[in-house]
């Protein structure tokens, strides 16, 4: 229970970064924080006390495994996350080249 609350606190910090900050890099960091907290939350749900990593050994087949389904989903999410972060950084670089600043309010005021 405490772990879930802490996890959603991390989510809220990322959301705060996205909503309040004016620097583009800080906004990208906030989005990445949101993604990390969601990954951790899914893995926390799938954990079983005393469970082993989901790899069937030759000798000791059986026993309790942790849930492999959230792990498989999060595995794809991590790689998608790095691709989207790269895309956002590319957009930030282009905006900096054009306007010379990372401040989104100034970018909004300047005319292209």
């Amino acid at each position, binding site marked *: 229970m405490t772990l879930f609350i802490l996890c959603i606190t991390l989510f809220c910090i990322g959301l705060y970064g996205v909503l309040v900050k004016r620097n583009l890099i800080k906004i990208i960091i906030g989005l990445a924080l949101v993604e990390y907290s969601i990954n951790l939350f899914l893995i926390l749900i799938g954990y079983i006390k005393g469970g082993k*990593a989901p*790899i*069937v050994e*030759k000798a000791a087949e059986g026993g309790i495994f942790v849930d492999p389904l959230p792990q498989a989903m999060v*595995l*794809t999410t*991590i*790689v998608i996350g*790095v*691709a989207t972060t*790269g895309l956002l*950084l*590319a957009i930030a*670089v282009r905006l900096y*080249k054009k306007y010379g600043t990372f401040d989104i309010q100034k970018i909004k005021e300047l005319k292209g």
Partner: protein
Amino acid sequence: MTIIVKKITQIIAGPIFLYGLYIVAQGHLSPGGGFAAGSFIAGAFILLVLAYGDKLRHLKTEEFESSLIETLGILFFIITALGALLLSIRLGFIPVFFKNFLTKGIPGNLFSAGIIPLLNIAVGMEVGGALFTIFLEFVIRSSKEGK
């Protein structure tokens, strides 16, 4: 970079690359698989570019090749899935996309698990190519901007 960084890179870049190949080959037996292996392979090349970046004047060629490998990876993935669909009709299975039509073998052997190792290799090519292309693109564009 200094000579220390360059020498250490010479020593460890090869083993990192080999470890990536090992992970992709053992993806159905031990922790790892295509995603981890692709990141490792991209990481080995990124280390080389970071250490020897000013000496390598062929980054454009590298970029072309890595994006080519990425495209081949996704093509290989789709062709394997489509081939499973077509061949499973011929072999008498119910035709399903991603049908595991090859023999399963003995679980635990290197040559087992049907088409999963093939798909692992395809995913490894895709992820490694994609991550390395992203990195190279940032390096090339920003170094041009500096001068």
